[in-house]
């Protein structure tokens, strides 16, 4: 199971083979059982941070959608051009320079 056998030696300072529960001293949980008073501004801060992240994520999504549209338009153009040249229709885009093979 998960024990210390695989861990590198730590120069002695942490090496205690067997430490029983009683040797660990009394927990100080009773001193730690508290909360820090936090006002409404804490929640406002959390809200603002979440809104900022969501806006950033939306902006990223939009830019990805735009990029996707550009790539898709380009692919459409290439496919259209290939399809047209395969069908011998004069070769896709009317602006495409005619090669020797076309004539």
């Amino acid at each position, binding site marked *: 199971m*998960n*024990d*210390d056998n695989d*861990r590198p030696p*730590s*120069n002695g*300072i*942490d*090496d*205690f*083979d*067997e*430490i029983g529960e009683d*040797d*660990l*001293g*009394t*927990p*100080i*949980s009773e*001193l*730690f*059982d*508290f*909360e*820090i*008073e*936090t006002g409404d501004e*804490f*929640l406002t*801060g*959390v*809200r603002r*941070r*979440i809104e900022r*992240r969501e806006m950033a994520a939306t902006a990223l999504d939009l830019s990805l959608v735009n990029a996707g549209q550009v790539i898709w338009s380009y692919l459409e153009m290439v496919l259209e051009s290939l399809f047209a040249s395969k069908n011998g229709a004069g070769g896709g885009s009317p602006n495409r320079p005619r090669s020797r093979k076309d004539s």
Partner: protein
Amino acid sequence: MNRRFPKVDPNDPDEVLVEQAKNAMPGDSRAFETLVRRHKGHVKANCRSLSGSESDAEDLAQEVFVKTYFALRRFEGRSKFKTWVQRIKINHCLNFLRKKKGKSFLDIDDPVMQAEPDLRVDESATTAAEALGTQDLVQEVLETLPDTLRVPLTMCDMDGHSYQEIADSLGIGLSATKMRIKRGREEFRRRFEEREAALAEVE
């Protein structure tokens, strides 16, 4: 009255609020905010203890809840919400400490630390004349402890993590974890009593 959204009862248990927050309509963060209100005091106190920094505690605690918000849909409820938030908080605070120091905070093997583990003690702090409440005193004393003792001590005695969980989080052995907790308790008590005595003298 908000008729669009279903009712959120602030007295509902965490599990109910978590489900409501997960299924909330866009723009309805009431259930999540109720959870934040319920746990913010403890999370902030814990962030302060873990980081040893009062000024960073609010930032850290807010970020913990932001992370919680965006991860909420993946929370399957196999542990309690509080335990799950504790895990997020521990990871976030440990990362903060690592970044702050520019290296791993687990530097108990560092020769300097071995020679003088109390290097970070600000002795002048013990002469402050102001009267402090117990909570402030606890935090103040905690902040004088080195990270290597303060972090496992906080995880154990404040958050109730098991020794194995602490060992796993810190990437150290089980016996090393126990030793640090033992030393942390001893050192904390010693400094706490010293500080109390100093304050009593002033008064």
